[in-house]
């Protein structure tokens, strides 16, 4: 079976499936073949569900042959981050404690994808409980970056990033509390979309931090991100944080026309403490968008100075509450880094937590003010390329900095404010992918998608693939 089907996108495969030119079974077999070939070295999967996937695929094939076509995701094989609940199936959250956990219901996003006819091929590796950025998982082994196996794929959705980049899934879903969709997407050279908080239901997704968590697409192209968002978005009575706002056909906004639109650039926070090559590539990206007719305006967001404090206090406090009982009775069943992360969360007071929420509100107001003047903000997605596995620090401009604090610096504001943000590939530094982040106003995912699309259509970074052939020979 050709591996060529696995490298295609949702947008390429869907019409072929609908016209019965290819079968969901062929595509699924192609994806599984690549997974079995490459995953032993990449370790993006916690579980490969081959038998179940083929059962789903044959069912989809029969339905389509019988004239029942459910829509654009019908028969498309996807593997998802192992933090989303599947009814009566094991979901681990990348943990030892929940290694045999079997929920009794589907996550809302899973039930939407099931309804759409998706073929599920497996559960993807992640940082334990999504509480970290490396996916160096002590219970299931480190996930490796397909561009360089000695490097991390980012996290916490590192398995999703690596699997999409290595064409071991057509697309995926990740979760993002401080950058866990956008950061792995950037360092794996794929597209990652964190929607507005409230756009996609988190029901049935094991929480890391209730007010910061998001679910979103991780895909090979911007068009696929638009397609997948359309399928998973929507108000859900089971998730009180979802907002009942209209969902649009995001794909229909992908015109690539950004003429007259205004790009905001905030330099003090978003272009400070960044690797020079990364900065250069993002600046070149902005210049390209200017050449397409967009204008650039410099903006100020003073409270960004406190955004890291607000994020840390909020995420530490909320996640420590979630894991409070297990931290009391079986602390050594957490990985060392996660155990320490959760223990720090017992230190902040209620006053600290509420002060962090005051900062969030102030930031939201400042961003709102900025979005009265500009259509999007553009920043680097990460300040550096993928660090090596085991590194706890990064060097930026000759200064040694904590990996955890540095690598999420540019993605965290999107979580603290809840604003939609997308990472799109914008080049390579020393052979490793670099991402450009586009942030937009609340519930204007179509705006950031179209900016990302305009950029993507003028480049071919997403068409470049890691040299997986070398993986096999080494």
């Amino acid at each position, binding site marked *: 079976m050709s591996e060529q089907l696995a490298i295609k996108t949702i947008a390429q495969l869907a019409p072929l499936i609908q016209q019965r030119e290819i079968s969901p079974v062929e595509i699924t077999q192609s994806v599984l073949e690549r997974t079995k070939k490459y995953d032993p070295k990449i370790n993006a999967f916690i579980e490969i569900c081959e038998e179940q996937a083929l059962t789903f695929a044959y069912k989809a094939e029969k339905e389509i042959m019988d004239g029942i076509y459910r829509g654009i995701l019908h028969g498309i094989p996807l593997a998802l981050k192992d933090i989303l609940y599947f009814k009566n199936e094991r979901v681990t959250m990348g943990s030892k404690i929940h290694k045999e956990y079997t929920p009794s219901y589907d996550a809302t996003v899973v039930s939407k994808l099931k309804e759409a006819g998706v073929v599920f091929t497996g559960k993807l590796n992640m940082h334990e409980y999504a509480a970290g950025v490396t996916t160096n998982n002590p219970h299931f082994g480190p996930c490796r970056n397909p561009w360089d196996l000695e490097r991390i794929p980012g996290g916490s959705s590192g398995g999703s990033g690596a699997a999409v980049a290595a064409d071991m899934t057509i697309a995926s879903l990740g979760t993002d509390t401080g950058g866990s969709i956008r950061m792995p997407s950037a360092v794996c050279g794929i597209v990652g979309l964190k929607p507005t908080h409230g756009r996609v239901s988190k029901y049935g997704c094991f929480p890391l931090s209730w007010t910061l968590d998001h679910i979103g697409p991780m895909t090979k192209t911007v068009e696929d991100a638009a397609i997948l968002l359309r399928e998973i978005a929507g108000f859900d009575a089971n998730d009180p944080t979802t907002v009942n706002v209209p969902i649009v056909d995001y794909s229909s906004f992908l015109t690539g026309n950004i003429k007259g639109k205004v790009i905001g650039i905030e330099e003090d926070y978003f272009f400070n403490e960044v690797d020079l090559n990364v900065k250069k590539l993002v600046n070149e990206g902005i210049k390209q968008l200017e050449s397409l007719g967009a204008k650039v305006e410099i903006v100020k967001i003073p409270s960004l*100075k*406190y955004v890291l*404090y607000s994020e840390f206090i909020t995420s530490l406090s909320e996640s420590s509450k979630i894991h409070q009982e297990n931290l*009391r009775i079986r602390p050594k069943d957490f990985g060392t880094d996660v155990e320490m992360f959760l223990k720090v969360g*017992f230190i902040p007071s209620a006053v600290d937590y509420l002060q962090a929420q*005051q900062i*969030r509100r102030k930031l939201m107001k400042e961003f709102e003010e900025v979005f009265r003047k500009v259509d999007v903000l553009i920043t680097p997605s990460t300040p550096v390329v993928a660090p090596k596995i085991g590194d706890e620090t990064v060097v930026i401009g000759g200064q040694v900095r904590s990996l955890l604090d540095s690598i999420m610096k540019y993605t965290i504001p999107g979580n603290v404010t809840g604003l939609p943000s997308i990472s799109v590939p914008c080049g390579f530094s020393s052979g490793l992918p670099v991402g450009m982040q586009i942030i937009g106003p609340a519930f204007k995912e179509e705006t950031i998608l179209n900016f990302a699309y305009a950029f993507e259509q003028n480049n071919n970074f997403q068409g470049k693939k890691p040299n997986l052939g070398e993986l096999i020979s080494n």
Partner: protein
Amino acid sequence: MSKNVYDLLISQGIEVTTEEAILLQTQWEQIQSLKKDLEEVIQDTDDIALTHVPGRGSV
């Protein structure tokens, strides 16, 4: 001060060694350093980002 972190965690039923308490103290001080001069920006009466909507839950 690390004794305070130790006592604080122990009082909440969290097992912690003195070595861990020192590390946690360092991490906490790093987090605290991120809010330097915050009082000049945030007023005591500033509203928070969490609101409670009766009948709908918290947002």
